[in-house]
């Protein structure tokens, strides 16, 4: 297992020296059960701040399940049960004193299918700050909306039609709107659940550029089916298989010299 493997995927993401990074999210022995069925087995991982961490793995491997633990979206599924420790900057996210609403403001999420609210573009971005009381007046809110749309690379395209429905945008624009919406609540962490799987290659490229830009300020976790995408955007990669975190490390290491046989098989395209 030593030495380079013949990975067909070139790693092009900007590497980041490990020493500069600090741990944003700590998971220790996280397991998830859907009723009697266990979907995730003792996942332990450190997620670095100001970096993109990609979760890869075949369908049903538990990567999305783990992602949804981080902002406790799994709470909405009645039969779902989570055990183990998940700490965001040292704070247990399952701590009863922690408000889940506040957690979700700190941990933004972008979903697989673009799901803007059936309201105006402005309203889509303004909704989060408004319900969390992040702005004091209309002017501040306007500024937040503009900044977030700018950060999401959408402002130029929509600045003349902020009052038009967000659902009238193209798929890629909608997804960027969803990213703007997610960063409007000033999160520390942005979770992205296969954000490009419903988009065409050009829109995908734009989103990936955006992710690389956002990385400088946020801790980003992206679940992706596409190993190429993981190689393009992520600094760290975690490989999940059958509910187990098989291997985790710097993206180059995972793609160039995987330790585990299963990782090697997956990235060389032997299954998945």
């Amino acid at each position, binding site marked *: 297992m030593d030495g380079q493997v013949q990975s067909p995927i070139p790693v092009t993401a900007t590497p980041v020296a490990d020493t500069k990074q600090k741990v944003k999210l700590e998971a220790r022995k996280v397991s998830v059960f859907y009723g009697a069925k266990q979907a995730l087995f003792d996942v332990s991982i450190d997620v670095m701040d100001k970096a993109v961490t990609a979760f890869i793995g075949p369908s049903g491997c538990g990567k999305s399940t783990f992602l949804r633990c981080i902002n406790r979206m799994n709470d*909405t599924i009645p039969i779902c049960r989570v055990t183990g420790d998940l700490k965001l900057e040292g704070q247990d996210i399952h701590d009863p004193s922690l408000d889940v609403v506040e957690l*979700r*403001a700190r941990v933004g999420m972008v979903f697989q299918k673009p*799901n803007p609210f*059936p309201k105006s573009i402005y309203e889509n971005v303004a*909704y989060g700050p408004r*319900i969390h009381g992040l702005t004091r007046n209309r002017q501040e809110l306007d500024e937040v909306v503009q900044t977030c749309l700018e950060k999401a690379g959408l402002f130029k395209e929509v600045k003349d039609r902020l009052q038009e429905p967000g*659902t009238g945008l193209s798929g890629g624009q909608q997804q960027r709107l969803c990213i703007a919406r997610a960063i409007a609540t000033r999160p520390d962490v942005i979770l992205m659940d296969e954000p490009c799987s419903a988009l065409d290659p050009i829109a995908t490229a734009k989103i990936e550029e955006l992710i690389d830009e956002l990385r400088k300020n946020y801790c980003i976790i992206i679940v992706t089916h596409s190993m190429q995408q993981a190689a393009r955007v992520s600094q760290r990669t975690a490989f999940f298989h059958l509910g187990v975190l098989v291997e985790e490390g710097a993206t180059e290491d995972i793609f160039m010299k995987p330790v585990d046989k299963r990782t090697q098989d997956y990235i060389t395209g032997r299954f998945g």
Partner: protein
Amino acid sequence: MAQETIVDAAPRQAMRGLNDPTLLKRRYAAERRFRIIGLAAVLFGFVFLVVLLGSIVANGWSAFLQSSIKLDVQLDTAIIDPTGKKDIDELYRADYTALARKALIAKLGVDANARPVRRDINGMLSRGVDVQLRDMVIADPTLIGKTVTVWLLAHGNVDALVKGHIDRAVPQERRQLNDRQVSWVDKLHASGDLKRRFNSGLFTFGASSQPETSGLGVALIGSLFMMLIVVLLSVPLGVAAAAYLEEFAPKNRWTDLIEVNINNLAAVPSIVFGLLGLAVFINFMDLPRSASLIGGLVLSLMTLPTVIIATRAAIRAVPPSIREAALGVGASPMQTLFHHVLPLALPGILTGTIIGLVQALGETAPLLMIGMVAFVADYPMTPMEPATALPVQIYMWATSAERGFVERTAGATLVLLGFLFVMNAVAVYLRHKVERKW
């Protein structure tokens, strides 16, 4: 070789089956038959609808017209206000009918000293002329002592004759109007002093034993009160129950049980709700009988399952991605519900609610149980006072034999259908208005 032919034979046979022209023809024929049956069913239903509506309109249109006689009534001070004080009680008690009769006698130019003639004159005017003249005088006491030209209601029999419901060929002993009266009617008709005018009384009068002075006034007010109560009770309760069950309630045996029960309640015969209202609201809680409050409560109970079921369906139809998006930006479950789910479900909720209301508006059986089949002549001012309802009024008129009531039965049905039509139109309009086009 032999084996090979056997192997080949199976697919070839199958192919023959597909290409068989008779099979194809049979399939086409079957489809044509099916389409014709469907079309016939639709036409059948349509013909029935036309016949039904046609018969109601044919019977009921004349209820919107009522015969009146134009008379120059001298509002004699000696009869109306002998004391000259214009005291309201005095004005109420005066014999206005006598004034009207005098005016009619003058108009016909007959000698009214003979008793049979006087009786025949009495039979020409409605008993309602008393109220007509009284209301006029009380509204404007300066009229006393003057002569006014007014259209006064003719007797129901006169109206029936004008509308052709009384057969002139029948000997006068067996006719509601005798030959003299018929000749008067013809004379007045010819001179233009007897006319069929729009029957506003149909919408304003309360209950009466005379068809020409009975109307839907009390029933309309009763129905209005009940609809208000139903809207105020069943909409908030129904939407709240549906939202809780759909969005917050845990899915367990209890909520399953509740769901089954709600669905069953929607199918419970309405008379059972009437019995419940009788037992609980009247016998146990001692609320006043015949009051529209109880009617409204009973109809609310009846409408509630419909509203809950429609609202649940509408809430369920909201895509889960919207909920995820809202929860994802940190909206609380309640914010998610009020900011996103309910606005999107609103068209469905509105439609369901209006369907429930329409059902409630047309409901008769439970109202019979709680005593809303009363003879109520005065307008109810509050929901606690006795009232009737539109469908109940129809039911009551349908049991009366006079020709005037028969046409009023059909006329009131038209009014009820009109209301149902308007409400459905409002439902369609609202649905289009609140539906998000994006």
